[in-house]
């Protein structure tokens, strides 16, 4: 008989992101320079958030959807300077974002440059993130702002993002500097979080993940990105479909946290008796303090009620 050794979530990591400052080093993430006089106007016409009011020094997260209203990518727009934007996405697939924007660049004076290989991204997550970075780098960070500072002739970009439901600050620097900057942040009180514990935190907080909860299989409303839609901004790609889904109450699924006694597989189908009930999109392999496992799923509307019991491959899961 095969026995399974369970691994508990690291409480020091979870304490850092929940009540201190967790540091996450992205192994790959999309970093794109978007420059030119039409760049911001183009993104405003293409994406779900109103962006024309994002002045120089400000930032805002937005979603690019297809004409069918499905999520292509979600990214932070950091307005670094005159006609100069930095786009940061959680997706490792920079080509997808670049080709989507490029497709719609016709008469616009705007250029895209993929900097994902030459740059690295660090995220600081947790309520004391701002204090930590201000102390470490001796800069002042405003909400939803991009701050540029020079370190040894290199420009480093610090972007705050209030759209995630927790304090979240991204640092983008040349790959060669990431060790030194991480060390400075850790010295100032940040705790480095590994991928498994970060995923556990993200699932617990129901923070949608790229190509998991959102992607071309989901619209932004069901994917937990409702806060990234400005309903009164006018047209953007997919707006008609998304407005219709909302107006006629046609959204059939939503992101829910599930609890179970054992880990469940991502991509597994949820059922209630013989009825399809949704699909598992993210699953933590780490056990919670009280011996449970957490997952995120796109759950069908009929099963939204907390404590609803569902089945996935013979394992009982409970909607939280």
């Amino acid at each position, binding site marked *: 008989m095969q026995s399974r050794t369970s691994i508990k979530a690291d409480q020091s990591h979870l304490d850092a992101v929940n009540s201190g400052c967790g540091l996450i080093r992205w192994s790959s993430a999309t970093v794109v320079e978007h420059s030119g006089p039409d760049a911001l106007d183009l993104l405003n016409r293409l994406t779900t958030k109103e962006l024309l009011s994002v002045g120089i020094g400000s930032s805002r997260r937005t979603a690019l959807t297809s004409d069918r209203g499905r999520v292509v990518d979600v990214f932070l727009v950091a307005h670094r300077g005159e006609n100069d934007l930095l786009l940061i996405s959680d997706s490792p697939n920079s080509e997808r974002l670049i080709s989507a924007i490029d497709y*719609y660049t*016709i008469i616009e004076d705007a250029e895209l440059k993929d900097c994902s290989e030459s740059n690295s991204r660090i995220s600081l997550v947790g309520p004391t993130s701002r204090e930590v970075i201000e102390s470490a780098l001796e800069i002042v960070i405003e909400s939803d702002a991009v701050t540029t500072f020079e370190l040894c002739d290199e420009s480093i970009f610090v972007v705050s993002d209030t759209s995630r439901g927790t304090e979240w600050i991204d640092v983008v620097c040349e790959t060669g500097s990431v060790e030194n900057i991480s060390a400075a942040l850790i010295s100032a009180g940040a705790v480095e979080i590994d991928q498994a514990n970060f995923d556990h935190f993200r699932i617990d907080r129901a923070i949608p993940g790229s190509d998991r909860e959102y992607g071309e299989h989901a619209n932004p409303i069901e994917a937990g990105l409702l806060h990234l839609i400005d309903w009164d901004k006018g*047209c953007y790609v997919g707006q008609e*479909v998304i407005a219709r889904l909302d107006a006629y109450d046609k959204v059939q699924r939503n992101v829910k946290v599930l609890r179970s006694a054992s880990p469940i597989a991502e991509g597994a189908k949820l059922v209630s008796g013989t009825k399809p009930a949704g699909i598992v999109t993210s699953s933590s392999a780490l056990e919670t303090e009280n011996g449970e496992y957490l997952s995120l799923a796109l759950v069908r509307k009929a099963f939204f009620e907390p404590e609803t019991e569902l089945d996935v491959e013979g394992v009982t899961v409970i909607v939280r």
Partner: protein
Amino acid sequence: MTMAPERTVPINTIKITEKAASKVTQFAADKGMDKFGLKVAVKGGGCSGLTYVLDIVEGAETDDKVILQHGVEVYVPKKAFVFLAGTVLDFSDGLNGKGFEFSNPNAAKTCGCGTSFSV
């Protein structure tokens, strides 16, 4: 046997109807422009992804394809022409009129208000 759809406009041009040309001339006169042309282009954005652009301008730009019809010069940027080839631009007025209307054979889908399309 499958028949290819009949094209009313050759794919190497776009057509502006006499009524649309007349409206363009009227708008240019209202603006006091002696020398004018109609810029027809496509930009990213709108519900379906690509939005029509119409503007009365003084002259063509270097990269524009110039088409003369009913006394009106139509300027189409080369990058936009691929999305517009074979299009008919008409004008409908009256209480139920929609103003300038595009009939674009490249459009696979058009949004409800008709200002954007996808190919």
